[in-house]
């Protein structure tokens, strides 16, 4: 039911992710003493930006070729279709990022014991990014103002995720208990999983009728 994508499209956010992470030591400072504490944050910021970048494509092509009209006229409830699309988006964006994050974290001299926590935080966090992003993408899809308007809408909602996600890794680095933060992230995930598909479906209907 999901649109098949080219394998290449899958690689794109990943490539961006890798590049954004590697830009950081280049642009700022390549020293270990500097990189190690910043690393988890950098990986998080980069995956957030990578997700953001890929959002624009989520519904845009569908809108331009008229698939979106067909989608809203399909007999299934729209939010289910949206959920399926978001899930596909996460599979092609979030999941590869998670799988690649340990490699990049190592390049930034993250302590090996923290890799697990970092991946866990991403595992809970990235679906939220996809879900919230879908709302932004749905709201902006009719507008030709370029994908960056999405950033404006979506980034404020991403910030809590970012704070909890990096907070989790930082607590772990400080040797503290991070389950409370994890629970918080989990709660955000549950919340957005129940609400975001409806919001995105509503936004899509509005965008289509314009």
């Amino acid at each position, binding site marked *: 039911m999901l649109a098949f994508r080219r394998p290449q499209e899958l690689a794109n956010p990943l490539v961006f992710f890798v590049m954004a992470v590697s830009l950081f030591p280049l642009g700022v400072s390549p020293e270990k003493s500097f990189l190690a504490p910043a690393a988890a944050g950098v990986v998080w910021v980069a995956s957030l930006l990578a997700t953001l970048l890929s959002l624009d494509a989520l519904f845009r092509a569908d809108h331009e070729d008229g698939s979106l009209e*067909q989608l809203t006229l399909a007999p299934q409830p729209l939010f289910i279709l949206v959920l399926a699309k978001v899930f596909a988006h996460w599979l092609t964006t979030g999941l590869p990022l998670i799988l690649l994050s340990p490699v990049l974290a190592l390049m930034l001299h993250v302590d090996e014991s923290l890799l697990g926590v970092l991946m866990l935080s991403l595992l809970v966090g990235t679906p939220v990014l996809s879900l919230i992003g879908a709302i932004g993408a749905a709201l902006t899809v009719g507008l030709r103002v370029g994908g960056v308007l999405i950033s404006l809408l979506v980034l404020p909602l991403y910030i809590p995720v970012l704070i909890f996600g990096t907070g989790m890794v930082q607590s772990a680095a400080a040797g503290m208990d991070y389950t409370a933060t994890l629970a918080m992230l989990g709660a955000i995930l549950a919340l957005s999983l129940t609400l975001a598909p409806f919001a995105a479906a509503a936004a899509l209907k509005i965008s289509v009728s314009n």
Partner: protein
Amino acid sequence: MTGQTPLLEAKNLQCERDDRILFENLSFSVDPGDVVQIEGPNGAGKTTLLKLLCGLAPLRQGELFWRGERMSQARPQFLSSLLYLGHKTGVKALLTPLENLRAWCAQREDVNEERMMAALETVGLAGYEYSPCNSLSAGQQRRAALARLHVSSAPLWVLDEAFTAIDKKGVAQLEALLREKANAGGAVILTTHHSLHLSGEVRRIQLGAAS
């Protein structure tokens, strides 16, 4: 109105866009077996009317009924009985005609591969089933969308400029298909700037200043 409840009934539709009133007090009904052509010059509001009927544009005034029920209640049934083809057809440029048809069917009817292949052949895409649509000509892309008509069992077809970019043979074939549909008890609402050559009666709804 006959004793039978009409498939779709519109009452007192009105539409204005940017302060221009496109139509007012438009009422009509569509029965099984009808072919209804919406006519009017460019910008008369044909596309807008079709979108209103399908619920793609918000209905600001007037009422719609599906098999006698208010549209707001009957929307799920309506959607599963509707096939809409707009100016833009929803054919994905990267997918092949077959994949496109399959993806479309997956959300609607249960159609097996053979019927899909047969439909593509009927619309003249034999040999192109596996080429991505962006390497097809304009007319072939439209045909890839028209293949849906050949697998659809929806009782109501709403077609906006379905003849665009189709060659003469294709147009004749499509006209035959529409008539067949109507004879089988379906209903077709369409717009076109071609002159229709349909055997049998075509009801016309005129919008805007006659041209």
